[in-house]
């Protein structure tokens, strides 16, 4: 009976929360401040016309142009110039800037209607059985052609669609480097997929390409975690009956030794920034799941904090490994808390409303992304980002299904997450202002994504 009253009170609170949320969102609309500032107003205008290929290379230009455009657009670094606003003639090499036809002089691009700051152009050809890309980036606002070139480079790969995408991504990565952006080319997303009939760990490129099975345990294998240096993958598997932590080398692909505590459950949660330790949650020393740190081989177990409630998902601040964010049920429904690595100074980050789970640190160490049912029914999670110092937060998904497990990309402005719509759970990426949402997976159910740095 008492429980029912509490439950009803919860619902009443939830209704109140909805009213508050509605009021807050209208205020927010006036404030129009993104927690993660994507600097929309200051983004340079980048023109990326379609490239053409000579000879056999032309048949691979559709995937090439798609990959080049989306890599640059999805980076969040640019305002993309619409193709309809571009001049009629597109240069294919610097010598085309000879004046005459509209498009063959810099002001044709810098002026209206395209108002371009930067132009990416070039072409592909077939050379020695490979595809070769000649790519340039020009600052079209320069007065002299001689000072316009920002980038000019040759890229080669295999003469097929994948090779065409690869040279496009490498070109895009070089363009992004010129703007100081990390870029996502070469980064890998690890995730759990049930497409074989068992939950296994898979990997894919940042844009959903190259989806590859990593584990073959034919059990329940999930919760992948990738080390900051990109060399190790930890995950949790029922391969031995009870949930245990396994460690794989991403270099050799082999299983590495990891000593599991004798406990009903051990689950991997996060590597420390130095990649030398693993944060786990385990029932090793309590009848409640508690937070521990171990060496990467499972030795050196050290408990962090103590409570008589389930505690899960510890994540280390990448800029200050003395601070953790974690999820605890100590005040009822799970909420986000921070604490020091010695277990002291526990503070709640979220308001206590709903259920707040799946914290992920931005590489800046100042923001987190997480999933929250705030204002919604249990299970109805949306992606939020929060400024840890001020507790200010912003909701990034709205009525897009059940959205969970947001994890930051190495560039700090992208998020990967899962969204369950109907019965199907798939992996999506977006910018941290909630724009540029892209679905990366379609086969089976795919969840628990984590984003690993480029390793080469």
């Amino acid at each position, binding site marked *: 009976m008492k*429980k029912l009253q509490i439950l009803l009170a919860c619902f009443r609170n939830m209704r109140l929360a909805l009213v508050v949320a509605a009021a807050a969102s209208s205020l927010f609309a006036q404030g129009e401040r993104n927690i993660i500032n994507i600097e929309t107003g200051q983004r340079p205008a980048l023109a990326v016309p379609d490239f053409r290929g000579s000879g056999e290379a032309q048949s691979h230009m559709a995937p090439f142009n798609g990959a080049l455009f989306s890599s640059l657009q999805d980076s969040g670094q640019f305002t993309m110039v619409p193709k309809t606003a571009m001049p009629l003639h597109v240069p294919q090499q610097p010598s085309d800037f000879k004046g005459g036809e509209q498009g063959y002089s810099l002001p044709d691009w810098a002026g209206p209607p395209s108002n371009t700051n930067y132009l990416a152009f070039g072409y592909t050809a077939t050379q020695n059985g490979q595809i070769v890309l000649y790519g340039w980036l020009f600052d079209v606002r320069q007065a002299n052609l001689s000072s316009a070139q920002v980038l000019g480079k040759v890229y080669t790969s295999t003469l097929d669609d994948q090779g065409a995408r690869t040279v496009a991504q490498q070109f895009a990565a070089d363009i992004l480097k010129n703007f100081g952006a990390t870029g996502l080319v070469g980064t890998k997303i690890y995730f759990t997929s049930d497409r074989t009939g068992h*939950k296994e760990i898979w990997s894919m490129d940042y844009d959903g390409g190259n989806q590859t099975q990593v584990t073959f345990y034919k059990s*329940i294998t*999930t*919760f992948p975690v990738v080390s900051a240096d990109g060399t190790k993958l930890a995950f*949790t598997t*029922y391969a031995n*009956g*009870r*949930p245990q932590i396994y460690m794989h080398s991403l270099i050799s692909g082999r299983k590495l030794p990891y000593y599991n505590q004798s406990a*009903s*459950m051990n*689950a991997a*949660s996060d590597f420390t920034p130095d990649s030398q330790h693993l944060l786990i*949650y385990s*029932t090793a020393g309590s*009848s*409640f*799941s508690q937070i521990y740190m171990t060496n990467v081989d499972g030795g050196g177990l050290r408990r962090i904090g103590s409570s008589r409630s*389930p*505690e*899960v*998902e510890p994540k280390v601040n990448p800029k200050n490994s003395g601070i953790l964010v974690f*999820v605890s*049920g100590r005040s*009822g*429904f*799970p909420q986000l808390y921070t604490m020091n690595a010695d277990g002291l100074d526990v503070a709640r980050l979220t308001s206590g409303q709903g*259920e707040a*789970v*799946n914290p992920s640190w931005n590489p800046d160490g100042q923001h987190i992304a997480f*999933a929250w049912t705030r204002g919604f029914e*249990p*299970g109805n*999670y949306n992606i939020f980002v929060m400024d840890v110092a001020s507790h200010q937060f912003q909701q990034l998904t709205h009525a897009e299904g059940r959205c*969970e497990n947001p994890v930051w990309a190495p560039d700090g402005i992208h998020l990967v997450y899962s969204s369950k719509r109907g*019965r199907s759970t798939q992996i999506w990426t977006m910018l941290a202002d909630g724009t540029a949402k892209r679905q990366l997976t379609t086969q089976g159910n795919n*969840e*628990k994504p984590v984003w690993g740095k480029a390793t080469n």
Partner: protein
Amino acid sequence: MSKSRISPFRSGRASAWLFASALLVFTAACGKKTPVQPPPPPPPAAPAPAAETQERPSITFTAEPSSIEKGQSAMLRWQVSNATEFSIDNGVGPVGSTGQRQVYPSATTTYTLSATGPGGTETKSVTVNVSSAPPPPPPAESHESSIDVINRDVKDIYFDYDSNTIRDDAQATLTSNAQVLKRVFASDPNILVNVEGNCDERGSAEYNIALGDRRATAAKEFLVQLGVPAERLRTISYGKEKPVCTDAAESCYQQNRHDHFAPAAQ
């Protein structure tokens, strides 16, 4: 049938004819004294049908089937000729010349049909063998393993949302489960039970692994308090990784918020 029957009335008339013709011959001889050739002697008298022609009763008497089990019935059928009185012993009593009667002997019984007619009394017997119904065979050798008992008699328990509190209904179930488990564990040293904690799909997978572990542990602690040996109970949390059903409805959520007790080899 009618050919073989010789009516007593007809045989009586035949003898009257013989007497009359013999008298006629005698009177004629006395009237005329003329010497006449004596007539040929009468043919030798036909064998008298008199008493000797009374046939003995003939009986057809069967029991079908002749062997029954106790409680079943047999059908007696009979047909008697050349008799006027018919009866069957063993409680059947007087009967007609043809007939049938269902009998329920409780033990092997010989029924004797007696038929009495002008030709005498004839009897015929049939025996109905009664075997008492076989006692039920001994129960099949018990192949019921500890695993079967646990699967059948140890019931799941259910939880409220985000809770590992043992509800009243779960206490009753666990109390009954404890009885079964103590008995099974006492008789079978090679069995143990995995207490599997499960959650509905709404919480996060990470939190549910911890919550499912609490649910399994809570049930284990309760059973141990009731005397179930702790070392025979092992907890496993499946979180929400092993749902019983996948509908987005409370009835399904409730089914998934449960502990299952799975037998396992020691």
